[in-house]
């Protein structure tokens, strides 16, 4: 998982309240991934759509393992 790239994207998002609110509110995964990819391109961060889907899938598994009944 491209952890450094994801960390950098998080930092950018957390520094912009409006962007944070917009991305946090997004419940649609494809739309969310498209927005994050656009953000990465805007900031020259080398991360692919596949990387994001893979990271999302791992994050979801981690959450479900601990919390889902």
């Amino acid at each position: 998982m491209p952890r450094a790239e994801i960390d950098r994207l998080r930092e950018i998002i957390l520094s912009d309240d409006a962007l944070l609110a917009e991305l946090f509110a997004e419940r649609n995964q494809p739309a969310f991934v498209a927005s994050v990819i656009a953000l990465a391109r805007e900031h020259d961060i080398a991360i692919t759509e596949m990387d994001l889907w893979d990271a999302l899938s791992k994050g979801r598994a981690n959450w479900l393992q601990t919390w889902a009944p």
Partner: protein
Amino acid sequence: MSAASFDGWIPAIVRVGEDGIPVADWYWRGRARFDGTAFADMVQQSMARPFNQLFARTTTLDELEAIADAADVLPVAGFVAHESRCGSTLIGRMLAATGRVRVVNEAGPVDALLRSPVRDGVDDQTTSRRLQAMLRILARRTDARETACVFKFDAWQTASLDLFERAMPGTPWIFVYRDPVEVMVSHARLPSYLMAIANSRATLGIDITEAYRIPPAEYAARVLASFCEAAIARGADASRLVEYPELPEAVEKRIAPAFGLTLDEADRIAMRGAAEMHAKRPGERYATDSEGKRAEATPEIRDAAARFLAPVYERLCALRRG
């Protein structure tokens, strides 16, 4: 890693990481209040969002302690321990209705510190230090109106009251309990993880093979009795014991004063409004169901309640009466 950079993030999961070191997964929640709703219900929605599945952060528990040390936190006014299914959520709802009290209700990451595998091989001193850090993290100031924080425990955390007292010395606590048959019928209607045989080691200190041999009603009564016994062992007395029929009035008259919370008329109005609604289904008006529960009790429930739970219930009543 600065404490400020974790403002708005909640450590919702504590687990053992791939390298065997316990870690916390932090999820963005912003400034959303803790209003007495069960912690799991409150954080699930934000955890399910794509943002948190991609951008959740992970720290070691040592890093979590450092963040807690640097945090600006609300005073912790009190702990609410309870038998389960006995009105403790109502207490939390009423206190939170004032808008000035944050009520953290059955926080999973707190419980994880007390259970396997995170607790395995960890001494009491380390666990109480980690508990202190977690409580401080959950009590961080986020809302200028809030002046105090109250933690409502999971029922089985009553057995860990000593660790919480060590983590936050001098914090007042109460123990809430209810008629044995009524509590048992509630568990029969809606089974709880507390009654899962897989948890027999944590609740009754017995192996799963032994637990399987115990009839279900007896098992439930013995688990509930263990919570009550733990409260007595920790020093439950008239000032700390609250029985269900005393609610909701006891929240204003006994619990708020015991927790050092000063109420004004607006607080009392808000609390009485909260008491009229169902604590776990806030859209519904509350109606007492004690009679219905007693009528619904099976012979097995009545027998197990009388044999295994009523004796400790009677001791709690005697202690409460002083």
